[in-house]
């Protein structure tokens, strides 16, 4: 595989060259005074940071219903965000034509909620910082894909700490052509290797009830989920989670009810609906005001359900989502 080695300042120059064109944008990270955050850059880069060690929200959330006509958007994001973008493209929420998605090797992140003091933004320092696994978010410590091998191109970090730009599709070549220097062979050994396969998720309703006892049904988890995209969610209206008169009628029909009602309903239905598209980024847990371990459930269930169809969300543009395709001869054991 051919790629270009980046010297310091190379990527900024390349992106600045990209931004010189009319209607070109870069969605990436900005290193501000108070920390690193997402930013859409126009005209030129300012305080650009390639890595973002803090996770607040998944940037694919901002890309929903993006059908940019005539503009070019370069995404310089974490692998989980690119994976969510790929899934949203499959769900026809994003048009791919005008987007160049570049995934960047991610050493891991810490939660925005627990951020204290300064966190390094350099890959080597970050790897040292995350030597202690407790300092990392739980979702990141069990991440399936931390390598920048997804989307149109990737920025990888080799063992010596050098950054490499590697194209995977024709669009990825656009970024490569903006970088100075000649393409070289990319070393096969990278700083961030393949993640290990997760254990099979198994739980029971008692544990579920205990974990979700604190849930106040604010639905922040749904609103911040990058792949939970329905405009007309089933939980709008009175069908699933009745309010007011509808609630009273239901209680007259079925008996006394603990409030807020419908916790299992809400979380299990949502868990199923995002099961094939969940990328396990943990944005739901970040958004939860009550600190419920949502990632454990959503990631566990989605990995189990995706495993049934040997599917991995966001791995490639060509794999269809399992629920919208089928094989004629399969799943014999599912019938009773």
């Amino acid at each position, binding site marked *: 595989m051919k790629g270009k080695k980046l010297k310091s300042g190379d990527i900024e120059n390349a992106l600045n060259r990209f931004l010189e064109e009319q209607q070109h944008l870069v969605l990436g990270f900005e290193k501000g005074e108070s920390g690193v955050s997402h930013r859409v850059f126009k005209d030129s880069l300012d305080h650009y940071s390639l890595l973002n060690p803090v996770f607040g929200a998944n940037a694919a959330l901002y890309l929903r219903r993006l059908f940019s006509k005539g503009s070019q958007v370069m995404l310089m994001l974490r692998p989980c965000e690119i994976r969510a973008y790929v899934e949203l493209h499959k769900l026809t929420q994003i048009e791919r034509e005008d987007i160049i998605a570049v995934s960047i090797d991610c050493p891991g992140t810490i939660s925005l909620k627990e951020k204290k003091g300064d966190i390094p933004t350099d890959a080597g320092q970050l790897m040292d910082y995350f030597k202690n696994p407790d300092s990392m978010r739980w979702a990141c410590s069990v991440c399936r894909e931390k390598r920048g091998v997804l989307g149109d191109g990737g920025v990888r970090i080799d063992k010596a700490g050098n950054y490499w730009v590697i194209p995977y599709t024709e669009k990825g070549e656009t970024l490569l052509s903006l970088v100075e220097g000649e393409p070289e062979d990319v070393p096969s050994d990278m700083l961030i290797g393949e993640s290990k396969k997760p254990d099979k*998720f*198994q*739980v*029971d*309703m008692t544990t*579920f009830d205990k974990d979700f006892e604190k849930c106040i049904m604010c639905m922040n988890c749904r609103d911040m989920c990058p792949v939970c995209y329905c405009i007309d969610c*089933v939980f709008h209206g009175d069908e*699933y989670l009745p309010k007011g008169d509808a609630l009273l009628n239901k209680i007259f029909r*079925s008996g006394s009810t603990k409030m807020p009602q*419908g916790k*299992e*309903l809400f979380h*299990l*239905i949502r*868990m*199923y*609906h995002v*099961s*094939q598209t969940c990328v396990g980024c943990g944005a739901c847990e970040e958004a939860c005001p009550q600190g419920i371990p949502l990632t454990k459930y959503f990631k*566990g*269930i989605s990995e*189990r*359900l995706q495993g*049934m*169809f040997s599917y991995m969300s966001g791995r490639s543009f060509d794999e269809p989502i*399992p*629920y*919208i395709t*089928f*094989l*004629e001869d*399969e*799943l014999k054991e*599912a*019938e*009773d």
Partner: protein
Amino acid sequence: MAEETKNKNPEIVGFACSFCTFKASEMAGSLRMKYPEGVKLIQVPCSSRVDPAFVIKAIFEGADGAFVAGCHPGDCHFIKGNYFTRRKIAALKEMFDAFSMKEKLRLFWVSAAEARRFVEKVTGMYNEIKERKNEREKA
């Protein structure tokens, strides 16, 4: 009294394809076959109409079990609806398995001519759920 019998006997919600399973249940009725009255059928135009959300709602709003039934694979009135059902419900079963309540959901295929098979299937499911329920009450 009514309350007592209601608690003792399980209630099962069944989603039945109107072209196959629902026809089979009607045939079972006209042949005077008996199946437990706790089995409540919901007619759906095709088994793939069943969003797993319906099943989850049925189970968490009081049903002891739920089943989804449709035409045999390949015999769907809409050509390929039940292939999608199979994928969706198989995944839902896997999810229920992860929550240790696999026994609450079943998927089976019954064609319009198989009234006997329909009665056997629902009675078998009903008895199993009833047994488990009684055991739990004793414990």
